[in-house]
């Protein structure tokens, strides 16, 4: 196909910078609709000259859109490639562009949420926080640098790869199982580290005394309920509480409500001497 109108490297860099502001106009009506339009404006300006074409392009990118912000790159890249083909005279219906966009929303939320919110951020933040607890400013710096490097790389590579591959990406590559492999791998890493955090960083202590034995040499051995739980399995109570909260969240009890409920448990429990 004859490609007279092409996006320049500068357009792509402009779009890359704009992607960092993806959620600026987040609203409950159309979520990222305006954000996506904002991202693709450099492409629209480059590809369409007549006001009618520009207006049509702007309007078709002001429709509902929502994706994990770090994963907008490939969607924007593919959409820009389709707009480019359309501007060069290819027979692409408006509805085709919209449905590709909507079609990519689901898979990339499915990949982005577990990878960025379920794995990458908890792990880098936990690493940073554990260093920060010693008072070292290295903690926040490590978190900021690691998370943003990964996020910016995903935006940059996603945009360029999506633009270069265009529709091929949607028609061929996503049909394969590459995305599913990455998602499953990241989920395993996320689950594994989360299990370790539940054990290591949940502090519950039940100092209720079960038995007190005075040994022959006069020293007293006190066994509390907590000692028994720790002998069974360290962190068992934290695990039980985590699974209980999972159930309650599924019953649509809000996180902030659960936090206040746990506060109440802490206050009542420590007042009665059951928790310490």
């Amino acid at each position: 196909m004859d490609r007279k109108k092409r996006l320049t490297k500068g357009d792509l860099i402009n779009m890359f910078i704009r992607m960092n502001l993806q959620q600026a106009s987040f609203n409950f009506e159309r979520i990222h609709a305006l954000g996506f339009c904002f991202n693709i404006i450099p492409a629209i300006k480059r590809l369409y000259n007549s006001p009618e074409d520009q207006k049509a392009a702007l309007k078709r990118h002001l429709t509902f859109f929502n994706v994990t912000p770090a994963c907008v790159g490939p969607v924007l890249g593919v959409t820009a490639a389709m707009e480019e083909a359309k501007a060069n005279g290819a027979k692409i219906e408006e509805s085709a562009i919209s449905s590709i966009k909507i079609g990519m929303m689901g898979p990339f939320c499915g990949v982005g949420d577990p990878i960025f919110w379920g794995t990458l951020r908890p792990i880098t933040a936990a690493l940073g926080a554990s260093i920060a607890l010693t008072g070292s400013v290295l903690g926040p710096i490590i978190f900021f640098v690691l998370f943003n490097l990964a996020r910016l790389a995903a935006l940059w590579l996603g945009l360029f790869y999506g633009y270069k591959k265009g529709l091929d990406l949607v028609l061929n590559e996503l049909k394969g199982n590459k995305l599913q492999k990455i998602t499953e791998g990241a989920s395993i890493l996320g689950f594994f580290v989360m299990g370790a955090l539940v054990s290591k960083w949940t502090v519950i202590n039940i100092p209720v005394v079960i038995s007190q034995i005075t040994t022959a040499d006069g020293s007293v051995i006190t066994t509390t309920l907590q000692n028994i739980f720790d002998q069974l399995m360290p962190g068992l109570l934290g695990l039980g509480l985590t699974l209980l909260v999972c159930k309650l969240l599924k019953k649509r009890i809000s996180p902030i409500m659960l936090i206040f409920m746990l506060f109440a448990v802490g206050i009542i429990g420590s007042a009665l001497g059951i928790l310490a």
Partner: protein
Amino acid sequence: MILSTLQIVLLFVVAAIAGMGSVLDSFQTHRPLIACTLVGLVLGDLTTGVILGGTLELIALGWMNIGAAQSPDSALASIISAILVIIGNQSIATGIAIALPVAAAGQVLTVVARTVTVMFQHAADKYAENCNFRAIDLCHISALIIQALRVAVPVLLISLFVSPAGVQNLLALIPAFITTGLKVASGFIVVVGYAMVINMMGAKYLLPFFFLGFVIAGFTTFNLVAFGVLGLFAAIVYVQLNPKFQINPIVATSDSNTTDRFDDELDD
């Protein structure tokens, strides 16, 4: 410690950065680890800011916005808590007690702000009619300013009227058993965040890896880096060995059927 004009201005700027971070969810400036550190920097007590940030970060580890669902607000909570702890010379535990109610209040403000920004969406629709690119860009950026002010204005009000004696008098009104109880509760409030992460992850048949991590952590003193490496190896080996990902299509179809059925049973 009385705040200088420069400090009040800088706190306003830091709060605006955290407010923008909170909606963008890009650079993570709304996370306690970053926001508290910046407040510590402005108020000349970096160490307290960093430690409070680390503590609150662990509590907020799993707080996330998925789709249109809003999490408790870490931006406002981190900044107000850090200001009061540093100026009032309070303990980190008190900081937690301050942060959580503020996170709930901030969540309400977030929902209000994200409803107000519907206006900007509609304004952009109008500008699209006459191809006004610049105005559409402006609509998008103006909405971001609303989000910055959402955090910066409450913080400005607090930093104008805050005084060490005022903070101490206010916190002295809280009875001791509540403060002790909050300290105890902060040990296990983290589980709400963990539960949010677990529920968000779609592939429930991978839960054995969660329990594996739990058991290994219970009986070893490995640090987080070790767990990251172990988890990565587990992920690579799982994907390599999983018949679902093999090239041979016959094996792949028959296996994906059986795992699907297995998943269905687990979901019930």
